[in-house]
């Protein structure tokens, strides 16, 4: 029985080898065919190298994320256990509980969402309008203004922050999120210059004939912008929206300077992340992790680091979820955005 199947198997393999040999003979029969064969092998090898490189780099990107996750799920009692490297000895969500309390998670999440959504919307509005005006509604001096808009990208925020803070304090605007909304709405939010540039390049890429047709039908520039250009600019809108949302979410500098520093009640995830360690003792009590108290665990720097790491995951979680929802649109948006006008 076994012998029979083995024999069959042998026959099949011999057959295949014979086929392959014949194929090779044909492939190497003439110099042209030989050349084609060589090229094919070369392409195959290059393809394999490409896969190795790309997936290797993907691993490089994902490695710290995995590391973070592995550390986050480690039980607090295993902190000093040298036998545990990657896979936690026992899965525990204690770290998450403690980090959530230390971050004041839900309050901070709410504030972060309000801030990021509002800023995204306002920034989209102001930069899209300016970008369209710079691309199509030209007037005397608009070229110079566009140059100034590009200039705002180059100037670091530290140059303007101190006088701005002082004048805003005098106007009693510091400590309220309205300040950030105002800046975004007036096209001076985080990296607004880049968004204006992006929108301008994108609108320049849309054919003029489309607009002209609308003008002939009797539309005014406002209608052309809202009914023709914006629906065609989905790619740019998604790109700008995602970037501005994420940059606001991750922003520490402006948010602390203008809001959180003078109004400690308005915390966002990113600003709270920095001060996680200060409230650790209190958080441990609040989270009800009594079993840990006896070991004087708060003085262990490894534990502190672990909590910091877990809070990092918690801060980034909403962004990652959002990203995986809009990821496809984002990639497509980039490809079609035609940043090069």
């Amino acid at each position, binding site marked *: 029985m076994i012998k029979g199947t083995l024999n069959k198997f042998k026959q099949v393999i011999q057959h295949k080898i014979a086929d392959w040999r014949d194929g090779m003979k044909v492939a190497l029969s003439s110099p042209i065919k030989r050349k084609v064969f060589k090229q094919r092998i070369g392409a195959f090898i290059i393809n394999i190298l490409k896969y190795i490189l790309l997936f290797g780099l993907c691993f490089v*990107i994902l490695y*710290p*994320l995995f590391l973070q996750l592995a550390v986050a799920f480690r039980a607090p009692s295993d902190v000093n256990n040298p036998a545990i490297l990657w896979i936690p000895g026992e899965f525990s969500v204690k770290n998450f509980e403690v980090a959530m309390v230390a971050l004041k998670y839900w309050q901070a999440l709410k504030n972060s969402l309000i801030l990021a959504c509002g800023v995204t919307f306002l920034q989209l509005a102001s930069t899209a309008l300016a970008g369209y005006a710079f691309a199509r509604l030209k007037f005397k001096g608009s070229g110079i203004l566009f140059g100034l808009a590009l200039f705002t990208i180059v100037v*670091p925020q530290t140059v303007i922050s101190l006088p701005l803070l002082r004048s805003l304090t005098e106007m009693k605007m510091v400590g309220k999120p309205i300040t950030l909304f105002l800046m975004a709405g007036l*096209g001076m939010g985080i990296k607004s210059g880049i968004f204006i540039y992006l929108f301008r390049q994108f609108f320049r890429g849309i054919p003029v004939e489309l607009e002209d047709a609308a003008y002939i039908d009797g539309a005014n*520039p406002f209608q052309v912008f809202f009914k023709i250009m914006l629906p065609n600019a989905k790619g740019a809108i998604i790109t700008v929206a995602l970037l501005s949302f994420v940059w606001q979410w991750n922003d520490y500098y402006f948010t602390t300077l203008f809001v959180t520093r003078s109004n400690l009640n308005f915390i966002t995830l990113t600003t709270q992340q920095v001060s996680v360690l200060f409230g650790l003792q209190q958080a441990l009590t609040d989270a009800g992790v009594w079993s840990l108290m006896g070991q004087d665990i708060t003085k262990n720097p*490894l534990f502190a680091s672990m909590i910091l790491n877990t809070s990092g995951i918690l*801060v980034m979680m909403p*962004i990652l979820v959002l990203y995986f929802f809009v*990821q496809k649109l984002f990639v497509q948006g980039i490809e079609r955005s035609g940043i090069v006008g």
Partner: protein
Amino acid sequence: MDTIKKARSVKYLSPEQLNLLQDKDLLKLEKLEHKHQLLSEAYVKYAKKQESKQSSNFSRLRNIGKKRTRIKVQIQRVKIELMRIEEGKLPQLNLFQRWKKYFSHMPYKKQKVIFGVLFIIPWAVGFILFFMSPIASTIWWSLNKMTPQEGGGFSFLYYGLDNYIALFTRQTLAGATVLEVLTSSIIDILIDLPTIIIFSLFIAVLLNTRFKGHQFVKAIFFIPVVYNMTVINNTLSGAFGALFGASLGEGFELSRAFSDFLMQIGIGNGLVGFLTSAVDRIFLIVNKSGIQIIIFIAALQAIPNHLYEAAKVEGATKYETFWKITFPLVTPMILTAVVYTIVDSFGSSDLLMFLTVNSQGTTMATNQPGMYSAISIVYFLANIFIIAFAFLFMRKSVFYYD
């Protein structure tokens, strides 16, 4: 038929109002026709003059013609209105409708300018409020010695360039002078810059082709754009990194084993050092080049396909197509990516440490705003200097299609 929607009731003007309007319109019509006649005469006269002189300057003639046609259109509009008045059906317009009518009678060129200004106004207001005035006061502050007063304000004392001189001669951070920190950060950027640009262009070219799983790979490559990597850097390789020796040891061991292996093969020490440092830095480089990859992918997508087809027909290899078509057409975006990289990596330069803490260990923003401003101005100038350098360096090699 009770489902018929109520038509929006239109208010018509009363007979008295109509009479008033009719008188007005007739007067207007008379005026316009008179103007039209004058312009026609001028036009004929000027045309004759032009003919006899045989000169080629037609701009005045053209202007007169334009004016005449504009008045013709106006006459037509008034006539239509008069016709409506005779019918007795002229809808009453509210303020907004009247304004809309007036606006739509404008030529498109004017409308575009008006809307252009309207669209830019928010940005322009923000620019003046949140950008120009802070910059002006920063420059002014940097020229003053500012000392905090009890009331909360500052007393100004004009200082000239003394702040800058003091900055370059006296300020130190952990034993390094400003000049040293500045040069070291500039050198860092100049080393990082080509690596990031070449790497991101290379990856963009790879990602731009279609292969199995390209959606997945692309999605992962843009994670660094979204993810706040400073959080990871702080926890895993920053101040807390040393504490993680136990769990991070693996990674280092890998690169040590790699270098040991190279040493045993017999490759020189210098090359090994470079390679291992490159392996160590790859994480940083990958994370820094997210936006640049986006820029390059967009640029590659914008290259017209017929160029590649033509090259293929001519028998060009892939290598040749890259250097003769892809690369030249991407050069403008290389410039953009370079500027972005410089701005981005200067944001994390050591020079910023001077801003938070000075040599005495007190916070600078509250105690010495003058010095703070001077530092940020120097920082800004260094930024501009590098960008200008890159710009001049690349200006000749940038190629613009069309």
